């Protein structure tokens, strides 16, 4: 079966600035697909083109087998969108937001009354049904935005940073819901800055930087291809990293120097850590951990992924 979303050489230009520089992407039915990248990587620009609210500058894009430039409204009828900035209707209550959004999709009021109640329960906002949106906390607004995106029972959900700014509890609630949706067969496309989020949720992902795709695959594939099995983090007194990195360079496959620590990429973290101690370097902080997407990212872009 063909891809639900198929992009070839997809490009977005704002005047002369290139925000998305010719990316190729395929998203298949039922998968969770992630765009991972730092601020300004072009994630939202890509999502907006897929959501048919931003014209493609060049390249081709097909969503649900249709061309956004021609069939925008018909495609959007089958998408659920959770934009980066919520864009809830602050003049309405929580329930009304769902009702009117469903009406925009042409759904009958009778259906919507029930669906709004179900969706509010799904995102645990039943208690807040009659509250004004302006009075909700950030996490509640995010959950309401997710509920709103589901009102038309979409085939594809586009989630632009679904959990940014949420506390750990709210974040886990959102993850649970997304996993549940995936089990129901909804195709999820999400962007994130969080490595753990991408590792937890995504079947496949692309790493974007400066408008281009720098790597793609499953989280595990990416870690295997671009990082070692384990990482040793050494925290030294600021200013001494560079000098010390030279002393431990032979202990690892690769060494990365960051402002606050030195990273040793190695197959055996404990052995490397012991060797560091034996040389009498005794850093104030030492941590052995499995490598993560963060390391992949660092490798690919030479930067840490912090906002």
């Amino acid at each position, binding site marked *: 079966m063909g891809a639900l979303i198929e992009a070839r050489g997809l490009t977005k230009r704002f005047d002369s600035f290139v925000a998305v520089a010719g990316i190729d992407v395929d998203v298949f039915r039922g998968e969770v697909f992630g765009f991972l990248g730092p601020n300004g990587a072009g994630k939202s620009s890509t999502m907006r083109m897929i959501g048919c*609210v931003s014209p493609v500058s060049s390249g081709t894009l097909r969503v649900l087998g249709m061309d956004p430039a021609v069939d925008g409204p*018909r495609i959007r009828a089958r*998408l659920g969108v959770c934009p980066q900035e919520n*864009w809830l*209707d602050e*003049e309405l209550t929580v329930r009304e937001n769902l009702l*009117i*959004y469903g*009406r925009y999709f042409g759904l009958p009021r009778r259906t919507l009354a029930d669906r709004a109640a179900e969706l509010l329960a799904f995102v645990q906002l039943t208690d807040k049904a009659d509250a004004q949106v302006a009075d909700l906390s950030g996490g509640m607004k995010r959950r309401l935005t997710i509920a709103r995106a589901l009102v038309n029972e979409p085939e594809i959900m586009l989630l632009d940073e679904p959990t940014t700014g949420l506390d750990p509890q709210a974040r886990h609630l959102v993850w649970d819901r997304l996993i549940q949706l995936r089990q129901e067969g909804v195709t999820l496309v999400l962007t994130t800055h969080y490595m753990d989020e991408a590792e937890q949720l995504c079947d496949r992902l692309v790493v974007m930087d400066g408008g281009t795709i720098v790597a793609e695959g499953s989280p595990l594939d990416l870690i295997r291809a671009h990082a070692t099995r384990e990482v040793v983090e050494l925290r030294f007194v600021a200013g001494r990293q560079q000098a010390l990195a030279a002393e431990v360079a032979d202990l690892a496959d690769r060494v990365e120097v960051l402002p606050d620590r030195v990273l040793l990429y190695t197959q055996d973290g404990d052995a490397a850590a012991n060797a560091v101690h034996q040389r009498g370097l005794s850093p104030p902080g030492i941590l052995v951990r499995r490598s993560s997407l963060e390391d992949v990212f660092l490798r690919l872009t030479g930067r840490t992924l912090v906002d």
Partner: protein
Amino acid sequence: MAALIARVVPIPPVRGRGWLLVERNLMVYRHDWLVLVSGFFEPLFYLLSIGVGIAPLVGNFQVGGHAVSYPAFIAPAMLAASAMNGAIADTTYNLFFKLKYAKLYDAVLATPLRPVDIATGEICWALIRGGLYSAAFLLTMLALGLVFSWWAVLALPAAVLVGFAFAAAGMAGTTFMRSWQDFEFISLAILPMFLLSATFFPLSTYPPVVRLLVELTPLYHGVALLRALTLGTPSWQLLVSVAYLAAMAGVSLWVSSRRIGRVLLK
């Protein structure tokens, strides 16, 4: 009128969903119905203050060979001006806020709705609201003995047409606004028009050059239309006014739809 507009504006013949924006606004005003009701009173205060306060100082006027009291002369002009003001308020300040700050339409455009639906929907809302106020105004005129002919029945659709022209024009202008300061331009256009469009004095009292300028303003045509209908002195010339206002509405609606798309679908 609808046929004319359909010819002027190439709206695709898809069943519009603009109505859903009206539904949305009704939902908002369910919480806030007092604001809606207060809109009835503003034009009535004008009418009463002028009718009771100024009229006795002015005496009668000659319009088309008839003697007309000052309140009867000025009431239809107030009706036209309030249709204009109401429409402008809805599609300029209110629209700008929703467009730039509330980001309402960004969310709406993620659904099957299109920019043209937003433009027609918001204008439709402005016209429904304005139509209610105009109807109340006309009934008040009737009660005060300021309506002189059955032609006045057409004054309601005519007032709605005036609202349509200004709502659409206001919306088109708003899509070009960058900040609240730019709204000065709207006041700059509205106030002289309000004072000079044969609102307070008959056109014959102006010098010829000014008269020509006045005849070019849309409010003049609105005033002429409503005045002829409530006084019962219609002429074929009014069709020019109707065509003027309809063309203004159609072109502005087209510009608005295009611009909303341009501003939001980046």
